[in-house]
């Protein structure tokens, strides 16, 4: 699948921002005043910035508001609702904390649930697609949620739980890659079922329908980056897991914590790029490609 920068940025940064909102929501002694203001400003900048960047890949962004209508069937529509619910609830919670020194825990908990629900709905946009076997698994949702709350823990300065969550997210990432490599084959879809010609003999794409490229090939048969996939996986894992864990074990949590966070974000960006670049859509079969 084509790794659109707007979508990679959206899912990484809004995931982080929503992860931070989750921790702020469930914190029994949430910060107040200017400290709270700083935390919420970062969380909203990441979450809202990510959501806005996601509209950049739309063909008709001016109609984006219509995406709220089909929540009954569409995960994309459900994501829109959950995001608004999380941002509004946490907004009220934040205003009370920042300006009135008042913590309404129930609001925080509701906001935290919606924040995680938003990450879950984002993951389901991908995990629901039978056409992309690598994504079509519950592990995709588990990975997105683990990365979101691990990043949120780092952002909110929770070292111990952050360490544990980093290890969990790293493990899920490795498992997702490992099982993902065989999922296309397991799906049972190949050129034989795609053409229905398999009972005659071996099928080979002989001639494409056109000499140039097209929307389908640009969007769904992205093969450029797979050459270095294994190296990039290692880079992603080192940046998002190994380096932050080592840095968090050092003293001076503020400086090394910040470096750990930057390294983690860079790692997640690489991993998210691979998430798209490595994903193979079954339509590629018709073109003799994957």
């Amino acid at each position: 699948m084509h790794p659109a920068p707007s979508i990679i940025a959206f899912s990484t940064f809004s995931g982080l921002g929503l992860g931070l909102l989750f921790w702020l929501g469930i914190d029994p002694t949430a910060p107040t005043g200017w400290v709270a203001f700083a935390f919420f400003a970062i969380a909203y900048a990441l979450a809202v910035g990510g959501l806005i960047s996601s509209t950049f890949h739309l063909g008709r962004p001016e109609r984006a508001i219509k995406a709220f209508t089909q929540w009954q069937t569409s995960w994309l529509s459900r994501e829109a609702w959950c995001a608004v619910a999380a941002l509004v609830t946490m907004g009220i919670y934040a205003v009370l904390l920042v300006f009135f020194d008042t913590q309404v825990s129930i609001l925080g908990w509701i906001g935290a649930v919606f924040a995680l629900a938003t990450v879950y709905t984002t993951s389901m946009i991908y995990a629901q697609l039978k056409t992309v076997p690598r994504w079509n698994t519950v592990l995709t949702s588990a990975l997105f949620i683990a990365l979101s709350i691990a990043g949120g823990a780092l952002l909110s300065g929770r070292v111990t739980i952050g360490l544990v969550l980093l290890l969990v997210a790293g493990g899920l990432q490795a498992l997702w890659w490992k099982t993902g490599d065989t999922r296309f084959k397991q799906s049972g879809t190949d050129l034989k079922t795609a053409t229905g010609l398999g009972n005659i003999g071996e099928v080979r794409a002989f001639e494409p329908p056109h000499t140039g490229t097209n929307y389908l090939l640009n969007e769904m048969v992205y093969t450029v980056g797979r050459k270095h996939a294994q190296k990039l996986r290692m880079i992603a894992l080192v940046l998002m897991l190994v380096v932050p864990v080592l840095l968090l074990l050092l003293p001076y949590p503020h400086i090394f914590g910040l470096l750990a966070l930057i390294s983690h974000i860079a790692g997640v960006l690489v991993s998210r790029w691979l998430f798209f670049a490595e994903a193979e859509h079954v339509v590629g079969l018709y073109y003799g490609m994957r």
Partner: protein
Amino acid sequence: MTQLPEKTERKMGLVIDLDTCVGCHACVVSCKGWNTENYGAPLSDQDPYGADPSGTFLNRVHSYEVQPESGPAQLIHFPKSCLHCEDAPCVTVCPTGASYKRTEDGIVLVNEKDCIGCGLCAWACPYGARELDKAEGVMKKCTLCVDRIYNENLPEEDRVPACVRTCPSNARHFGDLGDPDSEVSQLVAERGGMDLMPEQGTKPVNKYLPPRPKDRLNEEIDILAPLLAPVVEEPKGFLGWLDKTLEKL
């Protein structure tokens, strides 16, 4: 509405005969022509006369080589357009309700005024039947020529999809696949019509007729042949000597 109808009154669709398709691409051209000039946004081209041409098409013809266990390979031309699936995954993923499946005839359509061009429906379709038009920013797909098949301004013989009307080898058939007595349904029953990617669970309405078994050149075709004197005799003279000598080596 992106909820799929539980049942449609009719299942209008195409039956494509892989045995008779000659791969002329006339259906591709007539589809592009009709759908550029009529319903919805035109099908744009990008850099059509330049070095890197591309464009939006609702119907494309692939060609596949199939190698049986014995005998020569077969070349099969393979037109592909929207299959108007009963369980259309492209419809349910749409966040705006622009994609829908009609209850009356099962045609899957896009209301272009509601489409935000997110592309998720194209991701959900296993067949590559949907293409986002670059100029218009909205999703385009086969409409089964909904503006032809019910159009009383056209002569009756033209009230079929443009691809069906134009096919010179009669490889494309149009009708109600929900009615077991319809010509298309009988054709499917007779020829063993098949679904593409049945494991994807989309329940396509369009069916493909597999190629008929090929004639074999090496099979006896004349029952009198064994009685005829062989045309090629044992070589004589120099060639006969050469044959025997080489045989001995």
